[in-house]
């Protein structure tokens, strides 16, 4: 089943464009979350990064998926800075590796992409679940995705589980004290606030998901 479910370059290009749009729409919301327990720039940071991506995307469209995501990641890494720059930069750079230089991937490879990207975030930031970071959304989400794949769930359903568990993970950051990132120095005062990186992670996954649901219809 997974081998027959093919996602082509158009899907990924659309996702990247939608990511840029989504970030603009949520810029002030994410920045607002980061004002509570960080330095009030998470949305701004991502906006700066994705504007750079959009400036260059046209030139990358002829490349294969591995190269495209590497370029996206490098743009984020190069333009964003801060914590989310290297983290999302690494994530997107590694996202394309399982595509092995191809222009389309099957769903199994699609799953491998997220595995590869999320592991890169963990390697870069050294955060674990419970530290009140984006890892609190990404790791449980990915674990659920893995299980769903292993038990042979339908693609849309499997990714839906991924997103749902990521959202739960993001919600679960609210009562936590932070052990990584700027919020770390807040101690008890971080309690009651959602981690902004976990929120943006869910929004990013949601863009992939929305396009997945629309995929059959459009192509």
């Amino acid at each position: 089943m997974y081998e027959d479910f093919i996602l082509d370059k158009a899907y990924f290009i659309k996702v990247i464009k939608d990511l840029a749009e989504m970030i603009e729409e949520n810029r002030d919301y994410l920045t607002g979350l980061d004002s509570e327990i960080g330095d009030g720039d998470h949305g701004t940071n991502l906006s700066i990064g994705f504007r750079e991506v959009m400036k260059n995307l046209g030139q990358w469209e002829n490349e294969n998926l591995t190269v495209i995501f590497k370029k996206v990641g490098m743009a984020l890494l190069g333009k964003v800075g801060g914590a989310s720059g290297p983290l999302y930069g690494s994530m997107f750079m590694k996202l394309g590796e399982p595509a092995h230089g191809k222009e389309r991937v099957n769903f199994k490879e699609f799953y491998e992409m997220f595995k590869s990207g999320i592991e890169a975030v963990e390697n870069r930031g050294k955060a674990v679940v419970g530290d009140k970071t984006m890892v609190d959304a990404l790791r449980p989400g990915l674990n659920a995705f893995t299980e769903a794949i292993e038990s042979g769930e339908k693609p849309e359903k499997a990714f839906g589980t991924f997103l749902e568990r990521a959202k739960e993970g993001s919600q679960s950051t609210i009562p936590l004290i932070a052990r990584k990132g700027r919020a770390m120095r807040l101690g008890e005062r971080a309690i009651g606030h959602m981690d902004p990186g976990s929120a943006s992670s869910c929004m990013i996954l949601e863009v992939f998901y929305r396009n997945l649901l629309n995929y059959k219809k459009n192509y």
Partner: protein
Amino acid sequence: MRRLINDPYNIVEEMLEGFCKAHNKHVKLLENDGRVVVSKKAPVKDKVGIIIGGGSGHEPLFLGYVGEGFADAAVIGNINTSPSPEPCYNAVKAVDAGKGCLYMYGNYAGDVMNFDMGAEMAAAEGIRVETVLVTDDVYSSTEIKNRRGVAGDFYVFKVAAAKAALGYDLDAVKSAAEKANANTRSMGVAMSSSTLPITGKTIFELEDGDMEVGMGIHGEPGVRRTKIEPADKVVDEILGYILPDLPFNEGDEVSVLVNGLGATPLMDLHVAYRRVAQVLEEKKIKIYNSFVGNYATSMDMAGMSITLMKLDDELKELLDYPCDAPYCVIK
């Protein structure tokens, strides 16, 4: 928003263009990287390269301290955001004179990730880059290694840069920086937030008439929020945290930095300095020299921080060593 800007997405580039034009006797922008401000004298033969940096919005920190006898380069991030790895690496390539380089910056997770990646890239080419994180803000953590860096940056950078200018090797320069950092303590008070150009809003809310003691320069929460108290009381409270922390003792000799966060008049900083001097005199701590002004700001934030560095003969000599940077000239 009471700011004078153009497109907020270009603000850092425009600032850097203006800065390098205005101070073209001292600095230039790196040709292959628009986020690296380098000294016109760099690379200096047989000298360890001094590279400082971090998010912008704290001017004159970092770029104002690039120049002869001070830093060789500053790496500039977006507002309140660490620079990315590439310019950190490019700065090394630009200023390394074969003796290696020292990265110095405030201890923030984002900066550590990005500068470390820059150092790895340099290491891959066989250039040794060491790092000293500034951790002067006493209220930010009980554990010193977790503390963030604020205005104490100025002292740590100055001392290490002088050591490098004297021709010492990377290990010696690094230990001078570590020694300066180990002897430096800061704490601040904020009376307003700063305005982020892209959102046009303040980072956080702080009602007119309120203040927060212990707040960080990015608006990180402090000890408590209260009505603004008399300057003397605020100074006493801050010193109450700083003095026992090192501790600074009777007979010690110190340098004092009363730093404005951007929107606090020199008038108020001197009123505060007066109280610092009174308290230190009472405690028989000798003031060797003093700096009062905007050294590490948060754009248009109203507030002040106090930094003390405990001195010995070496630190005095390094602090007094001449330098000629756009925002710090010492004869």
